[in-house]
């Protein structure tokens, strides 16, 4: 019998550990990744010729980053590694990719999706000015290119990335004008019992806070974003928020990084036909999977933050667990102990993630307070008022219907960055629970793809 074709999409912590587990069992997986080098976003490697140390690049996570990189480097020759390759569609148990060798089609027996996450963003008036980045984008600029997004940056939003990126900027010598957190101190205290599920991660968080205070960075909690000031010529010039006491606070800056924790990149799971369910804790639709990483589609498995935001540590465990599940499902003998350990690590991370969701809640209620002139969909320049008017005039109460009538989520990002806020806004305007609004349907290609990538007709 021929070896099964096992494909992994994404070479972050989940994909790398999965590939290692498969190789250990004698399987040669195909690893498809958009990046030039493996590591994912969190352990993204610097380009060739850059010489910063692991500690400079990854701080407290340097050892983990190095372990993941070394693990993947050791697989060289044992995996069919396809970097700089976009898996843009999945159809009929085939992956369609565009990469350095053009268009390719890969039929698979088993597919593990480790597609990672991007920032969850809450619009604010002025977030379209140049110099406004997501937290993840701000971090990538620093990690991959050794650049800051501005000379004087405000970090605004909530979630662990808020403090991590701000601390990384401070450490790199960039001026951090302020950290403005929408979540309250009392929410963090209430979440403590769950956060203790991963004490080491909690300690890292406390350490970041300490570093920021030592660097003299003002930290405000319980704020409400009001406006990012700026203009078309010079970009961002300042940020105004309302403090927890209700005062207006304006901070001058030339860049702003914002985000509210992360959201999974689930389009490929949807194109692969996986069922989704609404998760009330994070107010997102997530692909359904069992404790071992099986999706609802036979032969399609899910691991890492692309399925549910559990963090990089859990992603490593979930990647290994999903790989062992693939092997077990295909009749290979696998270690029960290894599977049990991985399951427990994922379960601990899940409890921790519940803590994070409580400590740094998604401030969905803010969408109702957004002014009509605020741009909601930056790709298509659709304002909050445009969407509200569309709902009032057409009765569109469902996400895809609102998209069809207003163009919200119809641009380059296909709603990946505005879709969650748009759904909250519709729910608020119509007076229905956000799950009744549904979610934007995923359509190929999952990212923009050049028509010429298909080649030309030979005639």
């Amino acid at each position, binding site marked *: 019998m021929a070896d099964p074709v096992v494909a992994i999409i994404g070479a972050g912590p989940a994909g790398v550990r999965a590939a290692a587990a498969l190789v250990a069992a004698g399987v040669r997986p195909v690893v498809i990744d958009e990046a030039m080098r493996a590591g994912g976003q969190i352990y993204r490697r610097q380009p060739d010729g850059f010489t910063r140390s692991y500690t400079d690049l990854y701080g407290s996570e340097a050892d983990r980053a190095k372990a993941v990189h070394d693990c993947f480097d050791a697989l060289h020759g044992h995996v069919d590694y396809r970097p700089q390759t976009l898996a843009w569609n999945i*159809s009929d148990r*085939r992956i369609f990719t565009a990469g350095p060798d053009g268009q390719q089609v890969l039929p698979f027996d088993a597919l593990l999706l480790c597609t990672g996450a991007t920032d969850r963003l809450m619009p604010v008036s002025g977030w379209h000015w140049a110099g406004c980045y997501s937290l993840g984008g701000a971090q990538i600029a620093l990690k991959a290119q050794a650049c800051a997004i501005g000379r004087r940056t405000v970090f605004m939003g909530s979630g662990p990335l808020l403090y991590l990126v701000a601390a990384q900027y401070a450490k790199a010598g960039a001026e951090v004008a302020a950290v403005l957190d929408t979540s309250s101190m009392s929410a963090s205290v209430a979440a403590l019992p769950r956060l203790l599920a991963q004490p080491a991660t909690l300690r890292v968080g406390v350490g970041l806070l300490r570093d920021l205070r030592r660097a003299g960075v003002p930290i405000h909690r319980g704020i409400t974003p009001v406006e990012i000031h700026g203009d078309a010529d010079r970009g961002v010039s300042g940020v105004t928020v309302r403090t927890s006491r209700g005062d207006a606070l304006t901070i001058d800056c030339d860049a702003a990084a914002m985000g509210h924790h992360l959201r999974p990149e689930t389009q490929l799971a949807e194109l692969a036909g996986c069922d989704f369910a609404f998760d009330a804790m994070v107010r997102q639709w997530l692909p359904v999977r069992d404790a071992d990483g099986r999706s609802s589609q036979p032969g399609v498995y899910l691991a890492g933050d692309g399925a549910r935001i559990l963090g990089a540590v859990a992603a490593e465990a979930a990647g290994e667990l999903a790989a062992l599940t693939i092997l077990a499902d295909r009749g290979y003998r696998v270690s029960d102990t290894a599977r049990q350990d991985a399951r427990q690590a994922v379960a601990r991370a899940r409890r921790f993630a519940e803590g994070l969701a409580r400590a740094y809640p998604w401030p969905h209620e803010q969408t109702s307070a957004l002014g009509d002139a605020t741009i909601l969909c930056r790709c298509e320049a659709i304002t909050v008022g445009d969407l509200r008017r569309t709902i009032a005039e057409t009765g569109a109460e469902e996400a895809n219907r609102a998209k069809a*009538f207003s163009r919200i989520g119809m641009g380059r990002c296909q709603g990946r960055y505005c879709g969650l806020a748009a759904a909250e806004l519709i729910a608020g305007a119509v007076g229905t629970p956000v799950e009744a609004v549904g979610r934007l349907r995923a359509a190929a*290609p999952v990212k923009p793809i050049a028509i010429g990538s298909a080649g030309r007709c030979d005639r």
Partner: protein
Amino acid sequence: MTAPASSDVIIVGGGIMGSSAAFFLRRRGLSVTLLESDLIGRQASGTNFGNVRRQGRPLYQLALANRAIAIWREAEALLDCDVEYRQFGHMRVCYRTRPELAATMEQYAADARQSDLDLEMLSGNMLRTRFPFLGEEVLAASYSPLCGHANPRLVSPAFARAAQRLGAMVHERCAVTETAKMGDDFVVAAADGRQFRAPVLLITAGAWGDRFAAAFGEPLPLTSRAPNMCVTEPLPYALRPSVGVVTPDTEESVYIRQVERGNLVMGGSFYNPSYPDRYRVDVRPENSLSLWRQIQRLIPAVGRVSVIRTWSGIEGYLPDSAPVMGPSMTTSGLYYAFGFAGAGFQLGPGVGDTMAELIATGRTDIDLAPYRADRFSAG
């Protein structure tokens, strides 16, 4: 149980045919109930290319197409909604590999003039100067300046809302499970238990139309197809007419237009498998790739542009690619307008107007003979 809701006409199917028929029936004073199993204009009417094209249709269809285009030109005022109809022209081209099609287009242009469709034949330097973006393979073009394109996502819902403002009852997510004629009235039952009653029943259910006709003893050989569509990132607005390739070969039959927002919308090449029972289409990636290869023959520069979304929709086809349109041959008071073979968008408002006229007055100037429901019956 409540008594069935009564009206003069029940329309089953809320695409462009049904919603425009509802609008024009209200304008003629008839009471209307429009039933849509999903959402108005969500299937073929909302997912098609958006061509408002007359040329290339059978000559006998041009009277209907002309009736439609008069409505398109008034649509914004009529519906109190900009449905993005832009009369920037429509062009058909043929390739050097099929020179015989240039003569066919020329003959068509001569014939169509008698049906008030003026077409300009272009080739050589004239064609290159006016449309410099066309590929080298393009040999000749037939240009219709008084056609254009519109936004399919907006049109049917705009008709339905306008009909509603005039008093039509519009029920979305109302799947019809049973239709029967009882005495002088049709009784229509929906999946949620609601009942509707009317002396006239109009079936405008697109690719799902045959199942309603079959219930009245008129089986029709309707099949479904799902065209291959995609849209690019926005570019500066430059391509005003809608452009399509004339060819007998499905693979190379592609078409493209640019919306004012700047995105290029394109479609064609091989069809996708469709599953009307599940309201589902598989957009096959290999078909997307085929479209992307073919469209570069038409306009080579688009190779550098990125596609941001692909989609499809379900269209109903009869063997002669003409619709069923007009009265039932078995049941009085029953009317059909479906199976427009992927070419119904432009006709839509004209079909709605014609069906309203036929139902309200018992007659119409539009020749409905080519569309008879019994044309596929033996003998």
